[in-house]
Structure formats: structure tokens, C-alpha cells
């Protein structure tokens, strides 16, 4: 398969424009999910209807394909009179689904902090919020960074699915170029490389963060 260098030279600037949208989507999704996932995880930890609802939410979003969720958000919301843009719909769907995954990551992190840490905090007179903020969450965060980074990588790859709802991210740009040039190999090669670069940035960033946050344990 000969690589068409001239073609790639024309392709790359276009792909990079798409990559910008991809990065925006991925970064926003991660930022929102880091918070939203925690909310869901804490909600799930409570008893009663809230915990039940959080659990149901997690199961539903995790066990259905993202593409279909995206469709429902994009076209469904529009039917009921809330026409979010493609970007916003994609972001919402990505956050909904990955919020479920991130919540599970937090749950694992919370469970990995031993009950004795809670007791030690309570014995010092800490109330729930102080206990969580200064004792539990810092430990949870240090522990969830590697799985969160993995999730970040899969979010980055998942953004390719918003192509289906007319967002001009890298995959959509690629599709348009494939359509016009019939040169699937070169386009997908370039796309693969760009994703690889993006995801490596996350891996490296996570490793740095992990080292920063690591307390000697």
C-alpha cells in the first residue's frame, strides 16, 4: 500500500482542525465526568431512592451503546423542543455514558479506602464533609488516577462516534475525505496516528499526575 505523501500533506491540516474539536470534546467530557461521576458515586453510596436511581442510571448507560444514546439525545431532545447543537448533544451523551463508568471508578476508589481511615477521622471529631474532603477524597483521588486516565483514553476514542450527529471532529473530517478521495488507507492511517498522539498525551499526563499525587505508601 503506497503512502501518498502529497495527499497526506493536504489531508493533515484538515484533520488537525477536526482534532481541535475532538480535543475540546474529550477535555470537556473528562472535566465534567470527573465531577459528575463523583456526584453519582456519592449518590449511589446513599441508601434510599437516590442510591437506587444512581445505580439504575449507571446500569442503563453502561449497558447500551453510546451511538444510540447519542441519537436519542440529539434527535429526541429536539423533538421535545430542546434542540441542542450537535456538539452539545455529543458532549451530553458522552458525559452521560462515561459518568456511569467514572462513578464506578470512584466507587472502587472509595471502597479501597479502609474503614479504619473513616474511624480515625471520626474519632478526631471530624464531621462527614470534613472527613471526606480532607481524609477520604485525597486518598481516593490518588488511587483513581490510573483508571481515570484509562477512561480518558477511551473517552477520546469514543468522541469519534459524534460524527454520526454532524459534529466536524476528526472522524467526520476523515469520512468526508474518504468520500471524496476514495483513499481510505491514507486517511485512516493519519487518523490512527493522531489518536495515538492524543491518547499518549493522556497516558503521560496521568503518569506525571500520579507521581505528583503519590504519597509514599
Amino acid at each position: 500500500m503506497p503512502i501518498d505523501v502529497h495527499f497526506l500533506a493536504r489531508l493533515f491540516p484538515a484533520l488537525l482542525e477536526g482534532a481541535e474539536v475532538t480535543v475540546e470534546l474529550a477535555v470537556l467530557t473528562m472535566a465534567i465526568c470527573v465531577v459528575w461521576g463523583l456526584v453519582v458515586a456519592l449518590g449511589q453510596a446513599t441508601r434510599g431512592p437516590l442510591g437506587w436511581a444512581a445505580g439504575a442510571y449507571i446500569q442503563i448507560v453502561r449497558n447500551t451503546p453510546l451511538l444510540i444514546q447519542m441519537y436519542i439525545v440529539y434527535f429526541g431532545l429536539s423533538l421535545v423542543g430542546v434542540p441542542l447543537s450537535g456538539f452539545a448533544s455529543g458532549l451530553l451523551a458522552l458525559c452521560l455514558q462515561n459518568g456511569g463508568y467514572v462513578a464506578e471508578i470512584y466507587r472502587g476508589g472509595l471502597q479501597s479506602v479502609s474503614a479504619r481511615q473513616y474511624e480515625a477521622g471520626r474519632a478526631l471529631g471530624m464531621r462527614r464533609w470534613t472527613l471526606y474532603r480532607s481524609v477520604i477524597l485525597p486518598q481516593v483521588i490518588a488511587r483513581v488516577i490510573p483508571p481515570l486516565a484509562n477512561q480518558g483514553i477511551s473517552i477520546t476514542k469514543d468522541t469519534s462516534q459524534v460524527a454520526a450527529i454532524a459534529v466536524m471532529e476528526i472522524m467526520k473530517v476523515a469520512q468526508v475525505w474518504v468520500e471524496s478521495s476514495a483513499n481510505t488507507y491514507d486517511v485512516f492511517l493519519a487518523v490512527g496516528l493522531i489518536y495515538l498522539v492524543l491518547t499518549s498525551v493522556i497516558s503521560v499526563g496521568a503518569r506525571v499526575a500520579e507521581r505528583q499525587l503519590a504519597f509514599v505508601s
Partner: protein
Amino acid sequence: MNAESSLATDVTSPRPMLDMSGIVKRFGANEVLRGVSLQVARGETVVVIGPSGSGKTTLLRCVNLLEDYQQGTVAVDGEPVGYVMDRGGQRQRMAEREIAAAREKIGIVFQSYNLFPHMTVLQNIVAAPIRVRGIPRPKAEQRARDLLAMVGLSEKADAYPARLSGGQQQRVAIARALAMDPKIMLFDEVTSALDPELVGEVLAAMQQLARDGMTMIVVTHEMSFARDVADRVVFMDGGVIVEQGAPEEMFASPRTDRVRQFLKRYNDRYRI
């Protein structure tokens, strides 16, 4: 009790520092405490001994409501902790914030140190004073350094717990509890997880504390500590207090068979 020391309090006060009465605690059908009552006077050091499973740990955990209990009340320095009696004579659980406040008065040190691994030694000690009691950071840090000096760990202020030996970690845990200026300190087998070589340093810190007039309940298997430091030894078995008294009397001439047996087995094991 050294009346001149900084922590010295009025030992002659009629009101006990800790007053537990009729504590009953069940785990399911298993009645682990069967109506335990215990008064500890100001500045007194009570050592609790007894066979495994007799309820010693549970008793300590009930004092500051780490375990909930089904009957009985606890008061520290005259003020109820956990439950109050309402007008109808019914036990009423206090609000969480009141319980949290009451816990500040009670320091507890566990067998497994339980330091916060993500904080340095100093941060471990100042966290609660600053966040719970609102003490300004400089003042809290000064106090923390004093306490570290007292337990002989001044130079470890900025180390993380994982870098310390077990004995050092346990001394930090003691300093952390003391930083809240508790009225009473509870120790649950704080040397059991330590290498024999390291036990001494922790016991020394506790002995110093007792000498300074802190009110203490110490659960331990270290009989020599009981002998040298305790004002009173309490022997628990099967969820009740079987016998109590001054260490000399109890070790020399136990009144009950159960204690005699227990001590004999101990002597057999540790006599060279």
C-alpha cells in the same frame, strides 16, 4: 500523678472524668457487652486486660460511639456522649454534630495506627485541630511540634507515614490524638502490631502521658506496663468486668479463679 505537670487536673474532684453505666452492646444475637459500668477519675490510668474476644475493644469503641450500643450511657466530664435521657426516661441519640463535638474530647489510638497516608506527620497532627476546632494554622503547628518533641519525633515532622517504623507511626498517632486536647485518652492494644524492639518507645510515651496527669484507659497485653503505670487494673471476660483493683493486689493475689488462670498462663509463657 505529678500535680505540677501541664496536663495535671484535679484528681480529688468528685465528678469522674469518664462515667459509663450499664453499657449493653449486641452484634446481632451476640451480646458482646453485658451491662458494663466503669468510672475513671481525673488523671487516673486504668488498664483493661482480659482474654481475646472478651469485649475490650468494643468497650473502647462504644465510648466515642464508633460502635453504637443498645443500652446504657456514657458521659465525659459530666457531659453525655451519644445518648441523653429525655424527660420520659427514654434514651435519645444526640445529633451527629453534637456527637462529633463530643468526640473531640475523647482521644483514641488504635492497634493499627491508622495515620492518614497522604499527609505528612505534621499534617496528620494539625488536620483536625485546624478543620474541626478552627485553631489558626501557626498555633496548631506549634502545638504539633511540641507534641512531636514529647513523643521524640521532632525530626520526622515532614516525613510521610509510610517512611516511619511501626513504633514511630504509633507515636505520631498518639500525638495526633493529643493535638485535640482531649480530656481522656483511649488506647487499644497499641503495641500489639509492633516489633518487640519497638514496643518500648511507645510504652514510654504513654507512661510519660500518664505521669503528666492525662486520664487514660489502656487495653493491653503488656503486663509490665499495667504493673508499672496503672492506677487500677480492670479484668474483663465474656462482656463483663470480672475483677478490678490496684495492680499490685490483683497480680499478687487475684480474687477470682478466672484472673488467676489468666495470669498463670501469662507467666508460663513469658517466664524465661
